[in-house]
């Protein structure tokens, strides 16, 4: 058995907080061999990030290694002095983080930031540094590296910033790279290119990698071994194939089950014992059959939404337009939605997918009548609702019939309202129930429908968990028995196990209340589970639409194919490593 590069034994990390000492991780054991890629997987609060910070000795002032040891290549990390750690960081072990743009100094050119590291670790002198920096940018496949050397982070896209961060981390050819949720927040296609870049570069140099993620599928695709953590403890360590195909620990099993992937149904996501410990059983009201013969509930035709191009708004914009001499390279207005048409039947669930900037959120906000369109028609149950200005819409009875479930459960609840008050708001404004006790009764009925325990009704949002807040948001949305509900990435901010429960709840409510859903998401796996039909958008246009099974298993449009290919596919049918690249060769990022 070779000596591991990184050997974490019985590691316990404590934080001193206002409430006393909190043990973030306890008795953690992880070993990473040279050249191996290990994934640490867990939900929020599992301690996966804390472990990596402990390895790099980058813990907050309030944290310390209380017990156990971390050995890097024979060096004892816990006992090392700070100057010794500084020699290790960057040179022997390095780290990349979530949110790449924030990880770079906003007022310093990226080329100079690379040089700083090279000069500090004596990999270059001042005369050779800039050439080396440009070379590094080339290695991470940034196009026009000489030009980009002089760029500031705010001038680069998210994907490019992450490449720069990778370049920084690999500048001194360390032996170990720790990647902490490196692709969260990036588009699906960018995620794939970034992950493949990381894999290529680390394999090339024989580096070890620790990949920290909440996405079991991602870990299974790119890692040799997976360590599963829950609430500060390691619950299982096994090869990717084992974890994916035959997980041993109950928590891993639950996590595996809850991960949306091809070939499973909605019900399969739930744990075998129904996992209803955190919630009360939702009550089913009545079942309404899907009717395809009546006219569609919602019809959208040639919808267009234009915005003035950035920098050209208002008075300043008018001035600029008058005073410029050369016609600009791009048109003055930017079309977020560029002439799309689709319809939704009653009791039908339609998915609207695309990457960031494709116009799906704008479309859903216009359909919601929260903002106005530029042109086109929107017909709801025969009425032209597009013609009614958004400002007037909120006071009409029509408002009751179209509602929304928001992405961020924290942001969408008023911090000063209790759960009951939040659920009651639409009833107070648009409903016809009067009297405190009647309102309260209705509120409790709704809470029961969404599986929210009644004693949580008088709590404030900051006293509720993510899943509980999501339920409050759903209860509020269905309070007035809408016919069309728009769900804007409703589970994106939730842990995988909570997501499974909430998705099932949404499906049950749809069936019992006969609602139609417009499900806006970037996550194709989730859409696969919940939607009858799928619409794929790119750059403001619809590139493909059709029944879910057809679009997601036999995509016609090249963009759809690209999206599907970008999803992490663990392949365990061969004996070969599971991260073998499946798609076309990478192209340079522009």
């Amino acid at each position, binding site marked *: 058995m070779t000596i591991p590069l990184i050997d974490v034994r019985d590691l316990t990390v404590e934080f001193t907080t206002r409430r006393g000492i909190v043990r973030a991780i306890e008795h953690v054991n992880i070993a990473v061999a040279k050249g191996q890629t290990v994934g640490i997987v867990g939900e929020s609060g*599992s301690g996966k990030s804390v472990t990596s910070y402990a390895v790099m000795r980058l813990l907050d002032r309030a944290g310390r290694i209380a017990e156990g040891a971390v050995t890097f290549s024979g060096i004892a990390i816990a006992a090392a002095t700070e100057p010794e750690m500084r020699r290790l960081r960057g040179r022997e072990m390095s780290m990349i983080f979530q949110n790449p743009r924030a990880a770079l100094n906003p007022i310093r050119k990226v080329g100079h930031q690379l040089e700083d590291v090279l000069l500090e670790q004596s990999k270059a002198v001042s005369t050779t540094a800039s050439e080396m920096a440009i070379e590094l940018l080339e290695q991470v496949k940034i196009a026009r590296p000489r030009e980009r050397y002089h760029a500031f982070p705010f001038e680069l896209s998210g994907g490019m910033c992450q490449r720069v961060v990778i370049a920084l981390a690999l500048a001194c050819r360390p032996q170990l790279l720790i990647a902490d949720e490196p692709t969260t927040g990036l588009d699906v296609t960018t995620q794939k290119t970034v992950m493949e870049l990381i894999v290529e570069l680390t394999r090339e140099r024989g580096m070890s990698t620790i990949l920290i993620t909440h996405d079991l599928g991602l870990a299974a695709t790119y890692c040799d071994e997976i360590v599963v953590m829950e609430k500060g403890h390691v619950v299982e360590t096994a090869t990717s194939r084992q974890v994916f195909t035959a997980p041993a620990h109950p928590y891993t099993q639950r996590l595996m089950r809850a991960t949306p992937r091809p070939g499973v149904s909605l019900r399969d996501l739930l744990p075998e014992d129904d996992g209803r410990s955190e919630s009360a059983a939702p009550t089913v009201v009545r079942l309404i059959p899907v009717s395809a013969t009546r006219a569609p509930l919602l019809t959208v035709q040639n919808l267009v939404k234009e915005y003035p191009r950035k920098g050209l708004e208002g008075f300043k914009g008018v001035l600029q337009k008058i005073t410029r001499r050369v016609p600009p390279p791009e048109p003055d207005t930017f079309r977020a939605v560029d002439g799309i048409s689709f319809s939704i039947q009653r009791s039908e669930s339609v998915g609207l997918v695309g990457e960031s900037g494709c116009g799906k959120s704008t479309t859903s906000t216009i359909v919601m009548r929260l903002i106005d369109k530029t042109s086109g028609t929107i017909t709801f149950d025969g009425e032209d609702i597009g013609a009614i200005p958004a400002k007037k819409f*909120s006071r009409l009875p029509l408002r009751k019939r179209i509602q929304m479930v928001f992405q961020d459960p924290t942001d969408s609840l008023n911090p*000063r309202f209790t759960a009951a008050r939040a659920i009651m708001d639409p009833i107070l404004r648009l409903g016809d129930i009067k009297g405190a006790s009647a309102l309260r009764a209705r509120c409790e009925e709704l809470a029961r429908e969404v599986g929210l325990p009644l004693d949580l009704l008088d709590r404030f949002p900051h006293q509720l968990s993510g899943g509980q807040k999501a339920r409050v948001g759903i209860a509020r949305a269905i309070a007035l028995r809408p016919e069309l509900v728009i769900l804007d990435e409703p589970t994106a901010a939730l842990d995988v196990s909570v997501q499974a429960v909430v998705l099932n709840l949404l499906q049950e409510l749809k069936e019992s209340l006969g609602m139609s859903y417009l499900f806006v998401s970037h996550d194709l796996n989730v859409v696969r589970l919940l939607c009858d039909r799928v619409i794929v958008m790119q750059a403001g246009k619809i590139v493909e639409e059709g029944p879910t099974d057809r679009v997601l298993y036999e995509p016609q449009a090249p963009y759809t194919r690209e999206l599907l290919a970008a999803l992490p596919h663990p392949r365990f049918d061969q004996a070969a490593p599971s991260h073998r690249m499946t798609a076309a060769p990478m192209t340079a990022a522009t």
Partner: protein
Amino acid sequence: MTDTTAAPSSPSAPPRPSGLAALVRHGRYVIAENKVTGFAFGLFIAIVLAALIGPYVVPYDPLASDTAAALKGPSLAHWFGTDQLGRDVFSRVIVATRLDFFIAIASVALVFLMGGLAGVAAGFFGGWTDRIVGRIADTIMAFPLFVLAMGIVAALGNTVENIVIATAIVNFPLYARVARAEANVRRDAGFVLAARLSGNSEARIVLAHILPNIMPIMIVQMSLTMGYAILNAAGLSFIGLGVRPPTAEWGIMVAEGAAFMVSGEWWIAFFPGAALMIAVFCFNLLGDGLRDIVDPQRRT
């Protein structure tokens, strides 16, 4: 750094008190933790008491002059000494509390109404409201604030009411800016959109949804501005604007005592100046403590 340090709220714990009870409990917790805030709060109570009942319990009439006892240092008979007209400095300092406190409260109330509401409207509605409020604020901010206050009091007339008005005008941009920023941040928040979906009119959203959320920060701002208002008023009185002799007011007392500082009779200017300092210090500490209660992330 990571989210592991936050203790998760367990779904099976008993519901915690909400609303006012929670605020009081949290307040007591912060004061117990932070002795300084508790101290500031105690001081605040003392000042309020002095303002309310001070004039009734002082040993001497603040306006009564006794030339025989003029310019005597602190003693048992006169705790803070006497001034050039033989008036008891201690009595004058205590009685002045009422006037200075009144000026502070009146200015802060006025600017909160004008600036706070204007700022919220500007931040929430944007467009022309924002531009107009912005222009007004910018025009006021184009002046050094104390200089503008001088100009306003000189133009309107040398009275205490005009000091209040001048202080309110001069603080308008700051309030409007804070209120605007807070309203702006919340303008596109999920719960505001949800409120529209629930059928709330724009006016109702501002009053019932936005305002309760920004009140805590406005209260912090008000506490900090109380201190500044007192300093402003005292400064104006120091140069002869607003308050006239023989009224007892801290600023004018320092002005009267300034000439004697050079010749060694320090108590005439020192005690009113110290009172000024303590009052402002108290309001600033209170404001900082309130900020801790309201928004721990902004702790300085």
